[in-house]
């Protein structure tokens, strides 16, 4: 692949008359870890959800691995994709949510196996073996039989990461993966994410963990009121912000 993993051009999104995204332009290269920061309500989650078409964008274009998200281009005209096509497009993209969203009626192992077996029609035995490997990778080999309700927040989030990885995505989206965690549990989740970054995964991470961003991130994008205000390497943005809005935001969170 030559082009960027994610290419956003003028992405706009409305909720009713409220314009939440006012033209987002950004590129995420393959293997890049991009940290998305900004004040509450600035549209970070909305943009992330547009990338795997959980939200439909209202303007601009968004491409993942060169393919338009949610639309098809034929003879210069745009056609909306069917649910099935959207579902298959999402296979390349894993997502981790702030509130984990594990399936509470399934064990950790079943959570991880669900998509490979149901979507990719993998054989149960093979899917099980891979799921066990993944749980081991996030340090939860001993918890494979546990239901989400019996796990701590940090453990749940690690299962959620394993569940997303089970589909062997090319791109991982994280929406404030540690914001719902008790402070002492944040580290174990960030450790897993750091390993993932080291393994070369392309990641877009909405986070308030500036330490993680500085250490693991390849780039940082500061968003406010639906636009990208400033972007650059995490060190530059964090220690030498150019815009008044970035300065004001960072002075509050750092």
């Amino acid at each position, binding site marked *: 692949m030559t082009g960027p993993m994610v290419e956003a051009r003028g992405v706009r999104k409305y909720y009713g008359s409220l314009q939440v995204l006012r033209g987002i332009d950004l590129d995420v290269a393959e293997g890049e870890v991009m940290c998305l920061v900004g004040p509450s309500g600035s549209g970070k989650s909305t943009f992330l959800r547009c990338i795997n078409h959980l939200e439909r964008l209202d303007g601009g274009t968004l491409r993942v691995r060169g393919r338009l998200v949610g639309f098809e281009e034929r003879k210069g005209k745009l056609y909306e994709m069917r649910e099935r096509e959207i579902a298959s497009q999402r296979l390349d*993209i894993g997502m981790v949510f702030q509130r984990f969203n594990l399936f509470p009626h399934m064990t950790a192992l079943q959570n991880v196996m669900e998509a490979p077996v149901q979507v990719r029609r993998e054989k149960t035995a093979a899917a099980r073996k891979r799921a066990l490997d993944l749980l081991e990778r996030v340090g939860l080999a001993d918890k494979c039989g546990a239901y989400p309700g019996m796990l701590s927040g940090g453990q749940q989030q690690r299962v959620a990461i394993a569940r997303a990885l089970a589909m062997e995505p090319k791109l991982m989206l994280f929406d404030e993966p540690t914001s719902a965690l008790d402070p002492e549990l944040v580290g174990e989740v960030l450790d897993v994410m750091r390993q993932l970054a080291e393994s070369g995964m392309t990641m877009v991470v909405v986070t308030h963990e500036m330490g993680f961003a500085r250490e693991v991130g390849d780039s940082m994008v500061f968003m406010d009121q639906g636009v990208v205000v400033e972007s650059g390497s995490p060190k530059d943005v964090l220690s030498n912000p150019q815009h008044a809005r970035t300065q004001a935001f960072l002075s509050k969170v750092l």
Partner: protein
Amino acid sequence: MTGNADIVAVPVRHYGRWVGAAVVIALLVVLVYGFSQGNIDYGTTWQYFTADTIVSGMWNTLLISLLAQALGVGLGVVAAVMRTSKNPVTSAVAWFYIWFFRGTPVLVQLLVWYNLSLVFPTIGLPGIASWDTNSLMTPFLAALLGLGINEGAYMAEIVRAGIGSVDHGQTEAAHALGLSPTKTMRRIVLPQAMRVIIPPTGNEFINMLKTSSLAYAVQFDELLLSAVGIYSSNLMVIELLFTVSLWYLVLTSVFSVGQYYLERRFSRGTSRATRSRGLLGQVAANLRLGRTR
């Protein structure tokens, strides 16, 4: 009562309650006395309690209630899922089904099914096959369709509430994993909605046990019709109506006990103990009576 209560005070005297209780007891005595002296032969009531016709009517009541409830659950799930569909036609059809079958009396619906031959003398695919509606629409089928399709409209609302109770994040997580909308509903949303759906479904079934008596109007051999058959020849009307009442009480009581445990289990919400059991395990545990906890 509490051994270490050290406040000594005269409690409030509830004279009104005493008077009320006395009046109620007096009325009860009059009522029981009246029925015991009335022109009723209780021996007959008891005698028919175990009569073959009545017992087989009871089994038919149980059978039609179970089948109609099952049909109702199936239709209810389909209608509820259709209601949530983005396709306006699909959702409108479901809306109409619910509106129509909840808005008309079930007795009328039963009679319409039973007399369907008046509308369509034959049923079938033109040129391929065709049946005589009158011989097709047996009392059993009319009862099943009448009760089951009506029940489906009520179940649809219950299932819809259940679906609505599942956190939207579950759907998003499933979609993000690439599960299709159908798979998301079947594998992720519905199993979780069961927690909300199952207790009221138990109530619906207990109601169905009694509502099924309306099927006597379409000549289905359930409990009430069995009694009618007997008393129209021996004229022991009230005696046999009491016999079937006893059977209905037995049926509703038995299933109410099951319902009690069902509700107690599910009202506990997603406690850790509940979640750690599979759905079938939960249901099985609910039905195991006398479990101490």
